[in-house]
Structures are given as structure tokens and as C-alpha cells.
């Protein structure tokens, strides 16, 4: 018997999934763990159910997932893998109780994942443009997905430039990837560290110092700049990019917020008029400025 006003609300086409319980995570198995830098590890995992794995792998670069550690809680994390890669993995820094619980897990252990959520980077919209990636520290985690995706579709983009900063040479992440990008003909990859260890032969200084180095010509014309890193780095890099002539709408980033649901209901990630989980996490700098809150 239909009794309530609920039936009267026309939501046809509005809901992504009207019947499925979006809060229900699916069991995942940890395959292997690779240490990256201090307190940061990469966790390779797959869903217990192969069909779930297939469905999940259709995510877009820049989307995120909710990871459940039973008895501890759930946390949102970026998807550093590209949908063009075979394996699914997270790179997570140990900061709170959930991430600490994940760091304690061993291959074969089970946890749960739901997602992918969020808008992601519109990589298809950038076809024909040049891409400039600027990442500081673990800011590379969400951008890795875009970089791998762009290199896989290399013919679709014009110039690709990567600028990476880390505190020390030991704090550089995804080292095998960095070597590959440095040697790849289709991409310019520049690295910088804040403090040298004495052995480091590369640039020393903040990531923005790379822009002014002799021989470096940052693409500006018809270019999208991806910026991700700690708030201080973000502010300075944005200033540099705007000075170089980038328009605010051509600078994109991904925001992180405390989230409980990932689907626009719990209210924790709401900044200004945006729910980071469903309206983001990817925003242009033009949008970020209007949100009116700390990055």
C-alpha cells in the first residue's frame, strides 16, 4: 500500500542507484604492501567478488573510495591507480586510527571498499590541450592517476610536463614511475627537493623554483595545470601559475575533507555551496576561490 508523500517525489533519473544500498561496502583482499616513504605505503588490493572488481575499475582519475576497517571505521582515500592499469591500489599515509589500522594489515587480510565516488578529472575534455602537473609530497597520489592515464593516451594531448617536489630525496614517492617518466620521450619530468642529502644531484628548492630554471619552458597556452600538495605549496604554486598567465579556470585541484558517507548526505565535507564528495573532489581554482574556506 502506498501511503506516504515519498512516492510523489519524482526522482526519475536523478539517482545514480535507486535500489542499491550505497552505504554497503564490499569485501576486499589485500594482495601486497609496498612501502613508499616515511609512514606512507601502497596497498594493492582486489575485491573478493570478481564482478565487483570489474565494475569498480571503470572509475575516473581523481575519484575516490571509502575504505572500511571493521571495528575502527571508514575513511576516504584517493585512487592513485589509473583505470588503464590492471591493479587497484591505495597509497595511504598513517595519520589517524583508520589509516593506522590499514598500515597494520598483512597480505591476505580482508577489509572493505565502496566507491568510486566524486566527479574526477574530466580527462576527455582536455584532449588536444597541454597538461602541466605540479605536485608536492603526497599530493602526487591523486595526480598519479591522471599522469598514467594521460601517458597511456599520449597522442590525445599536446605537451605533458610534470613538476614534483619533496622534502628530501628519500621522500620522493612512486620512484619506479618517476624514473620511467624522466626517461620517457613524450613527457618532461622535473624533480626538486627542499633539502638535499648530499648525494642528490638535482634541483634543491620548493617545487615552484623549477619553473624558473634555465631550459624549463612551462606550457601556458591552451594548457591545464593540475596542482596538488600541502596548503602552503598550493598557495605559492597558484601565485606562480597566475603570474605566468594561467587562467583560474584552467587550474584544477582536488580537495580533501573529513567525510563519513561519500554520497552527499552526512554533511561533513560541505564547503560553501559544495559537497566535496559529490560536487568534487575536483574543482577548478576559480571554483575553489568562491567556496570561501581554507584549502
Amino acid at each position, binding site marked *: *500500500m*502506498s*501511503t*506516504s*508523500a*515519498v512516492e510523489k*517525489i519524482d*526522482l526519475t533519473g*536523478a*539517482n*545514480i*542507484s*535507486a535500489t*542499491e*544500498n*550505497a*552505504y*554497503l*561496502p*564490499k*569485501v576486499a583482499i589485500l594482495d601486497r604492501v609496498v612501502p613508499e616513504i616515511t609512514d606512507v605505503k601502497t596497498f594493492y588490493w582486489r575485491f573478493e567478488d570478481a564482478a565487483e572488481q570489474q565494475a569498480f575499475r571503470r572509475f575516473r582519475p581523481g575519484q575516490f573510495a571509502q575504505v*572500511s576497517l*571493521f*571495528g*575502527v*571505521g*571508514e*575513511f576516504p582515500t584517493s585512487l592513485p591507480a589509473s583505470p588503464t592499469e590492471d591493479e587497484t591500489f591505495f597509497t595511504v599515509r598513517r*595519520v*589517524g*586510527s*583508520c*589509516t593506522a589500522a590499514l598500515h597494520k594489515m598483512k597480505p591476505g587480510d*580482508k577489509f*572493505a571498499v565502496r566507491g568510486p565516488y566524486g566527479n574526477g578529472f574530466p580527462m576527455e575534455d582536455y584532449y588536444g590541450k597541454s597538461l602541466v602537473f605540479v605536485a608536492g609530497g603526497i599530493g602526487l597520489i591523486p595526480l598519479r592517476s591522471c599522469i598514467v592515464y594521460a601517458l597511456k593516451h599520449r597522442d590525445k594531448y599536446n605537451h605533458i610536463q610534470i613538476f614534483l617536489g619533496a622534502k628530501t630525496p628519500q621522500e620522493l614517492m612512486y620512484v619506479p614511475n618517476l624514473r620511467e617518466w624522466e626517461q620517457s620521450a613524450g613527457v618532461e619530468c622535473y624533480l626538486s627537493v627542499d633539502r638535499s642529502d648530499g648525494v642528490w644531484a638535482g634541483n634543491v628548492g620548493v617545487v615552484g623554483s623549477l619553473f624558473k630554471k634555465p631550459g624549463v619552458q612551462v606550457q601556458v597556452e591552451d594548457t591545464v595545470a593540475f596542482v596538488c600538495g600541502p*596548503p602552503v605549496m598550493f598557495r605559492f604554486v597558484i601565485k606562480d601559475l597566475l603570474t605566468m598567465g594561467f587562467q583560474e579556470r584552467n587550474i584544477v585541484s582536488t580537495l*580533501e*575533507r*573529513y567525510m*563519513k*558517507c561519500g*554520497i*552527499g*548526505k*552526512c*554533511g*561533513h565535507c*560541505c*564547503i*560553501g*555551496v559544495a559537497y566535496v564528495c*559529490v560536487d568534487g573532489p575536483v574543482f577548478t581554482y576559480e571554483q575553489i576561490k568562491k567556496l*570561501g*574556506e*581554507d*584549502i
Partner: protein
Amino acid sequence: MKARILDRADVLKIVDLLRQQGYEVMAPFCGRGRDTYFDVVTEQNRDQVQTHFANPYYPPKRYVLPHIEPMLKVTRANGNVRIEPIYEEPKRAIFGIRSCDVAGIYHLDLFYLGGSFRDTYYDKRRKNLFLVNMVCTDPDRDVGDECFCVCADTGPAARDRFDLQLMDLGDEFMAVAGTPAGESLLADPVFRRGTEAHVEKRRAILDEVRKRFKTSTSWFSATVRYVSHGEVLEKTWEEIGNRCIECGGCTYVCPACTCFTVSDRQTGPDEVERVRIWDSCALGGFTRMAGGHNPRKAVHDRRNRRFFRKLAHYFIQRELSMACVGCGRCVDVCHGNIGMPSVVEMIRRATAEFENHEHVSR
């Protein structure tokens, strides 16, 4: 909408009818003093059900969004993990829900069932919920000192979104059906056809009760404009924030607040239950991230958040409904006198004064 008349003495027969149909009926009861609460109707307490009562502080939104709601059960056995959802689909009726709270539930419908994702838990509780709205007609017992539904346009008589609406006409009650389910109840012999005089009486009572509201205006339109345009001075937000003691009371009594947190709790040696719990944007930890970074550090940033969420045009349009229904509960519970009407007034005064001054000096 179809309307019928019933004798005053028969009004609780509606409770009986619903119970016969298998509904668990929640109805208002009086405790000591001002204390009122919704509780399950039983054989024993049926005669104590109230038709005129101060609206309970604990809003009936808990029947669609319990303050603690189990979501999942996770069990571990022999290296396997089983995740099962915990659903509750009660066949429940709320007898005597006030018009403001009917609007509150409608707001929650739009929020939880709309957007990109439909909330399964809300959906299941809402599907079989039957709402019997009681119109506020007694200016002394029904209308609270802080009620402002006339400004929020949700009362004293809800226009829709109820299944059945009851209104005290003196010796008789008028029953109005809002849905087919409500209309089917009117077939019972306890109801009879009304006359033009009944409709006239309804109008006269409502005209009178509207005049008896103490908080008659709260200047919503000007404030919505100022908030939406970002014209509210930082100083004004700070003044509002300075009065907030961060107790979270306003959000817990609000029939239109939606935020929750999620927590896991151990229920056995190999069993964990995931629950969601009402949360409050007034609390300091609401936006604090695992590393300790909190983008909303200052109290006034958090106060600003709650009122921005409720008053910004963008959100009103997003849900096609305003997240304030004029129930006045936040005014009653706030120790700092920053319930909705006074905040609206503070914003309107300060912003208008500033704008006028700027205009003149230019």
C-alpha cells in the same frame, strides 16, 4: 482535498483505526510541566494521548532518522568476512505531528531521497510512515512563545505532505485527507460529511490563531538575499559566533538538520556493528581531519556554516525547500539566544545598516 467531520469524543478512534490496520502509532503525551514527548500507543496509555500540547523538543524526525541507527553487521568466521545490512521497515504512524514537523519530514524526504544517491535506510523507514497532522488551534497550549511557522510558511495548518490532517473546531474535529491512504480512512462510519459552516469555522479559527503568534516576523527574505550574495559582514558572523557555547543543541532539536557521523562498535568477539549517529556542525571536531588540520577552526565559522546552509538561496533551490520550518525549537534550547529568528534579525539589521551607510557616504 476530501474533508470529513467527527465528534470530539471520537478523535482517538483514529488512533484505534490505525492500530487495527497494523500501524505502530506514536502519539504525544504530557510529562511534568512543559515536558511532552511522542511515545508508542498501547492499550494502557491510549486514553492519555493529547490533542493539544506543547510541541516536544525531541523532533519526530527520529522516526525516519533515529539518533543512533544501525546500518551494517560485520561478522568474521574462519577467515571470511560477511557484511549484512541491518534494515528496519516499521509500519508506523505519527498521530499529532505538528505542521512544522510535517514540513521538516518533507525537507528530509527531498534531501535523503533526492540528490545523486537515494538513502536506503531513510527510504525504508519513510515508505510506510503515516502522518496524522494536528493543526495548532489553541494559542495557549499549541502555539509556543518561539513558534514562527507563520513566517516560514509551514503552519499553523500544513497545506500538504500529510496523510490525514485533524483540526479542532470546538465540539467537533475536521479531518482532511492528503493522500489516498488518508482518504481511505475517511470511509469509517465515525466520519460524516461537513457543511459550509464547518469550512467557515475552520477559516475563522485559523485567522484568529495566526494573530496569536508572538514571533510574528523574522525577515527571512532580506536575510536570504544578504547571505546568498555574501554581503553579511565577517563582524556579524563573529558576533553570532561569540554567543555560541558549542553545545550542538540547535542541531539535535532541529527537524530539518540532516548531518550524521558513522561509527563502528564491537557487538561480539567477531562481530562489529556500524551505526550512524546525529552529528552537529556546531561541534569543533565536525570538520577536523585525521592529520589534525581543521578548515573551520573558529566558532563563528561553524555558526556561519549552520545558518549559511539554512539560509543560502543555493541550498533552498537545491532541495526546493528551506531547511528551517519555523518550529522555534532552536530558540528554546539556545543558551546564547542565537536561534533562527534572532540570527535572521541580527544579519538583517547589521547588513542593512552597513549597506545604507555605504550608500550614503559614496
